[in-house]
């Protein structure tokens, strides 16, 4: 039995048992599905996308109130009388709810998208509270009493008035949503969504418009909540503000977190657990505590803190591990015929790829980069070296769109790039790796590398949800495998990225950059943490890429590696260029020796700066000490 079989078995068992369930249990199961629909949106937001919302109950409210108003208000009924048969009015209510939710969620997302991740949830608290008070005070929505007399849904003349009749519809909607979201996550767009969580700089460098994706995920979760609200209104047949207050919004989050915020089925597990436990607690607690009130919040809150401290991933992974002992892994499906990905024509060798003109960066009074001018041509390896704190990382940020220069200009393939985001650099053909490895540790090496090819495919969210993207997806994965193989990591392609040694993770980053088929490659300390033979393999790979016409800019502390590979070297110290030339020229340059080994004879420079400290590893790596050859390890 595979996991797929187990899911099918669960669905069939629920369908067969449904007519036999007691009325109360059927109602309860209907509620569980309604809650799970909201919670699964929160899983997408929290566990997958690295955001969260405490205000989902407010979106449920919009879905519920929209349909209740359309179906019952005198104004709406008068306007629709004769235009729309009564059986179709609730569908208009659904449409209205979805449109309103879409507009509001998009607006809230757009306001907070550029700010740090915690502003969105804070905003949802305020929004959830505000909407609750608003609904309680709007007379045309019934104020605190709410709206009664919401009609039941009917499909083709068949009334869905009782929970026993509506329940299967709700479950069908939930299962459909789970299927679509599962497909979405298993696609190019899904990888981009997952990348949001691990830091936006990385995702942007892969060409992902993180702000846009964040809004879309937030809107998706809100729409799911609105659908839940629409179903709720037609099941309950009346709406008032109480079930949409902030506490319920927090309860939805409990469901997602307790169940397992990183897993779609965690939402179903969490919704089931919390609903059943709440039912029991509401029976027991008032008697136990001798007072009446929403005391289940105390228990849920404690449970939540405990889960976050002890099982940060929720209960679903534990359950899945247990079930995994009895389940066969699913057989890999035969890939569809792969589509072809667009291929970039590389510039002729010697063509100018990247040039900076007097790039300067000041942080307050500190000049991190002082008028740095350099070029990178197709078919060359250009190394950027310098002691720690020389401004190499700042300069990398300047030429990759992570930060803006205070002064000066950056041109990529002839185009001025000042003020552009990282993804614009990626779009023009820049691939990069990071000094501190930025991979999705839990995902496989293959998926990580495929993220690098994000920009080379087109399929959108709807296509991914409906599995219309399979040919393109097969092509992306094939391309990712090709790059993994090229970098010598095929043995690890399906392992979780975090399980690899740090040096290998750096190589995964190179493979990821190559999957985007860059014209310019920026490598930040690629050889750090590699063993001798691995370094040789890396040098061979980079030489091969150079021969293919890539321009490679590399920051590296391993001098043997740099001196053997680079065509040109630029040396930075205290933010400015102190030397530039071939490895031979640079090794003989007195200022370079001075910077690396410390002042020789008290010149003016020494007076200007604190006494340089001798850095043994750097000095050894320069090739001055034969004993230490090859021992250049970056700190």
């Amino acid at each position: 039995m595979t996991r797929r079989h187990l899911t099918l078995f669960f669905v069939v068992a629920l369908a067969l048992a449904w007519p036999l369930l007691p009325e109360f249990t059927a109602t309860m199961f209907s509620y569980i599905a309604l809650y799970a629909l909201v919670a699964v949106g929160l899983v997408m937001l929290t566990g997958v996308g690295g955001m969260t919302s405490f205000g989902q109950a407010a979106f449920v409210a919009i879905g519920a109130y929209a349909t209740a108003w359309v179906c019952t208000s005198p104004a709406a009924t008068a306007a629709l009388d004769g235009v729309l048969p009564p059986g179709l009015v609730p569908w208009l209510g659904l449409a209205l709810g979805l449109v309103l939710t879409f507009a509001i969620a998009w607006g809230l997302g757009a306001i907070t998208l550029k700010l740090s991740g915690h502003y969105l949830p804070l905003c949802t608290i305020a929004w959830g509270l505000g909407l609750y008070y608003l609904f309680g005070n709007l007379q045309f929505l019934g104020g605190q009493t709410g709206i009664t007399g919401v009609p039941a849904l009917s499909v083709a003349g068949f009334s869905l008035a009782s929970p026993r009749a509506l329940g299967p519809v709700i479950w069908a909607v939930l299962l459909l949503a789970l299927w679509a979201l599962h497909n979405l996550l298993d696609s190019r767009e899904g990888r981009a969504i997952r990348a949001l969580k691990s830091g936006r700089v990385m995702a942007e460098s892969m060409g992902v418009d993180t702000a846009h994706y964040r809004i879309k995920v937030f809107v998706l979760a809100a729409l799911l909540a609105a659908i839940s609200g629409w179903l709720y209104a037609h099941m309950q047949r009346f709406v008032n503000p109480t079930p949409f207050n902030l506490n319920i919004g927090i309860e939805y989050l409990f469901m997602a977190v307790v169940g397992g915020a990183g897993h779609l089925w965690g939402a179903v597990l969490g919704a089931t657990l919390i609903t059943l436990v709440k039912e029991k607690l509401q029976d027991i607690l008032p008697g136990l505590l001798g007072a009446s009130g929403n005391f289940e919040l105390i228990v849920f809150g404690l449970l939540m803190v405990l889960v976050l401290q002890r099982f940060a991933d929720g209960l679903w992974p534990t359950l899945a591990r247990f079930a995994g002992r009895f389940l066969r892994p699913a057989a890999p499906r035969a890939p569809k015929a792969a589509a072809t990905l667009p291929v970039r024509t590389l510039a002729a060798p010697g063509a100018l790829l990247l040039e900076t003109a007097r790039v300067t960066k000041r942080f307050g009074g500190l000049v991190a980069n002082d008028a740095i001018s350099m070029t990178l041509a197709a078919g060359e390896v250009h190394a950027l070296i310098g002691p720690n704190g020389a401004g190499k990382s700042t300069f990398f940020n300047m030429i990759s769109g992570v930060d803006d220069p205070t002064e000066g200009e950056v041109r990529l393939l002839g185009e001025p790039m000042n003020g552009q985001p990282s993804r614009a650099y990626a779009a023009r053909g820049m691939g990069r790796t990071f000094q501190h490895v930025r991979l999705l540790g839990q995902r496989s090496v293959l998926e990580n590398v495929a993220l690098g090819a994000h920009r080379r495919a087109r399929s959108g969210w709807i296509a991914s949800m409906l599995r219309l993207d399979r040919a393109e997806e097969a092509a992306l994965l094939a391309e990712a495998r090709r790059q993994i193989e090229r970098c010598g990591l095929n043995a690890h392609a399906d392992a979780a990225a975090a399980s690899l040694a740090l040096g290998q993770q750096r190589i995964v980053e190179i493979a990821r950059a190559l999957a985007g088929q860059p014209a310019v490659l920026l490598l930040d300390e690629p050889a750090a943490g590699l063993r001798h033979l691995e370094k040789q393999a890396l040098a061979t790979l980079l030489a091969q890429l150079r021969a293919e016409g890539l321009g490679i800019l590399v920051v590296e502390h391993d001098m043997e590696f740099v001196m053997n590979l680079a065509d040109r070297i630029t040396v930075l110290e205290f933010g400015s260029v102190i030397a530039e030339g071939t490895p031979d020229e640079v090794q003989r340059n007195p200022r370079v020796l001075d910077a690396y080994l410390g002042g020789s004879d008290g010149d003016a420079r020494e007076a200007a700066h604190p006494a340089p400290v001798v850095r043994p590893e750097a000095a050894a790596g320069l090739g001055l000490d034969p004993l230490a050859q090859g021992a250049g390890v970056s700190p």
Partner: protein
Amino acid sequence: MDLQIALLLGQDGIVNGAIYGLMALALVLVFSVTRVIFIPQGELVAFGALSMAALGAGHVPATLWLLVALAAMALAVEGWRWKRGVTVEWKATLVWTVLFPVAALAMVLGLRPASLVTQALATLLLVTPLGPLLYRLAYRPLANATVLMLLIVSVALHGVLMGLGLLFFGAEGSRTPAFSDARFDLGGMAITGQSVVVVGVALALVVLMFLFFERSIVGKALRATAMNRVGARLMGIPTDLSGDLSFALAALIGAVAGLLIAPITTIYYDTGFLIGLKGFVAAIVGGLASYPIALAGALLVGQLEAFSSFWASAFKEVLVFTLIIPVLWWRSLHSRHVEDEE
């Protein structure tokens, strides 16, 4: 609206704004030192106000038993950590888990405070140690988690404390006697002594905090931790203790705010949450980082609340909470590149 009413509303706004300003101060302090967005700050206000009311009515506030229970749990956790070979700062631990609870027990049960001043002192003694105890039990095990995770813990803790507030103090609200019954007449405007007390104490606290952070070595250590945790630790500043201290200050500020506001308005178990959130709106004006801008934001929130209660009283809360939306929009205009999460 005539000038008389406008002045009255303005005065109301300043008094409320002072309370929100205290909230914002505590929230910015806790966030910058520990990265915790301390949603339960408002619950501490309610606990302060309602404990004071219970003492005034001659009851033993249940806050005392909460304090004793949390202290016992925190002590047990430290003991367990110590047994597993973790270095435990026993001196600080004993201050929060033994010294304060024993002092509170002695004060409430032994002394049975009868005057307003001793009751207020007892309340501060009851509420202040709740801060570090909550920090140690709920947040410290997750010190390396993301801001988002810590925020979810905060919201969960808010649920727990609000539920406990309902259990301890019931659904009925309380008011406490004013610290001052004086009334002044300033150019035709009546000013109550209590509002002078509120603004005066709030100002005094702000000045004290300023002096503490600018002049004292402990305050400088806290600021260093806020700027760079790792760097501060390398300089020998125990960052765990900074957590204790910032939460203690936040709880102290919360309790003071509770004492100040309880004579002005009826406090229910869930009122604190709304007060805390309005402090949040103010703190967000300052980007959760700037104290002076947060204080200005608090005055803005106070005025908006006062005047909207006149123009559209039913939508007062809606207006105050939706203020966050233009504020965030304004802030996002100033940030162009994506900010990376820590």
